[in-house]
């Protein structure tokens, strides 16, 4: 193994290092770039009623099963601002950047950062 490594030219080693560094940097870069395009999806009873970017600040009124609720989007974060339910678990969860907020009594689900789906699309041979 050592002998084989000695047989590589300097250009080989530079190319190898360059490719490794470039691909690792690329991994971080794409992760960053894709999280910029993250979205907020609000579902009521399993049906999407609202979709928007996580980076446009706004308050969204939603009609849940128990009445009015308000979802607030600000600075790439999202929270349940108001909801008419008994225990307010959704409001206590606070701001999130990715993941879900669930208000079970109202049947409202807020999903953040769903811009990517890592499904398997093809297998190469």
């Amino acid at each position: 193994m050592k002998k084989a490594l000695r047989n590589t030219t300097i250009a080989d080693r530079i190319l190898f290092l360059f490719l490794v560094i470039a691909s690792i940097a690329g991994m971080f870069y794409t992760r960053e770039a894709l999280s910029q395009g993250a979205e907020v999806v609000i579902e009521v009873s399993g049906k999407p009623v609202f979709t928007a970017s996580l980076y446009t600040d706004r308050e969204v009124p939603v009609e849940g099963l128990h009445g009015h609720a308000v979802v607030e989007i600000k600075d790439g974060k999202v929270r349940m601002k108001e909801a008419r339910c008994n225990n307010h678990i959704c409001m206590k969860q606070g701001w999130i950047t990715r993941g879900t907020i669930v208000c079970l009594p109202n049947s409202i689900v807020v999903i953040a950062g769903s811009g990517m789906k890592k499904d398997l699309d093809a297998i190469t041979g």
Partner: protein
Amino acid sequence: MQLPDKYRIAILSAYALALHGFEAMLPSPIPWLRLGLANIITLTALILFGFRAAMMITLIRVILGSLFIGTFLGPSFILSLGGGICGTCAMGAMLSLSRKIFGPVGLSLVGALFHNAAQLFLAYWLFIQRVEAVVFIAPVVMLLGTLTGFVNGIIADILIKNLLKKEPDSLHNVAQA
């Protein structure tokens, strides 16, 4: 093309096919991660016998290999063919451009990179059509391809050295390697 060349291409194609089939049977932690073992044979043929032999072996390997495994003309066949042709062309161009600069390891890295690039492009163009999925997966594929390409290059290097040691007279295209 001379007659001995045909025998060599046949034998090397058989080796490449065997490695291709062996690789298809290996369990893999990630479904689309391939070791690219057949590329060892392509690279050896490229350096010892030239670009035409390497391209022949790649085409024979991809077409016959897909027939054996049962993916002929399927999506994975198209990806495999595109990647194989692009990778071999890139290695051939690299070899003729810079015979002294890059050794087998460097050529293998270039081949792996272009193989993956062609596959990603084809996959995007024909099947996925979601640019963020391809962009997301590209660096991961590139890293894995670099690592496997590096190992394959070292194996090809050892193989070429041993072949040259064994029969230096019958290998004609090798004075520069």
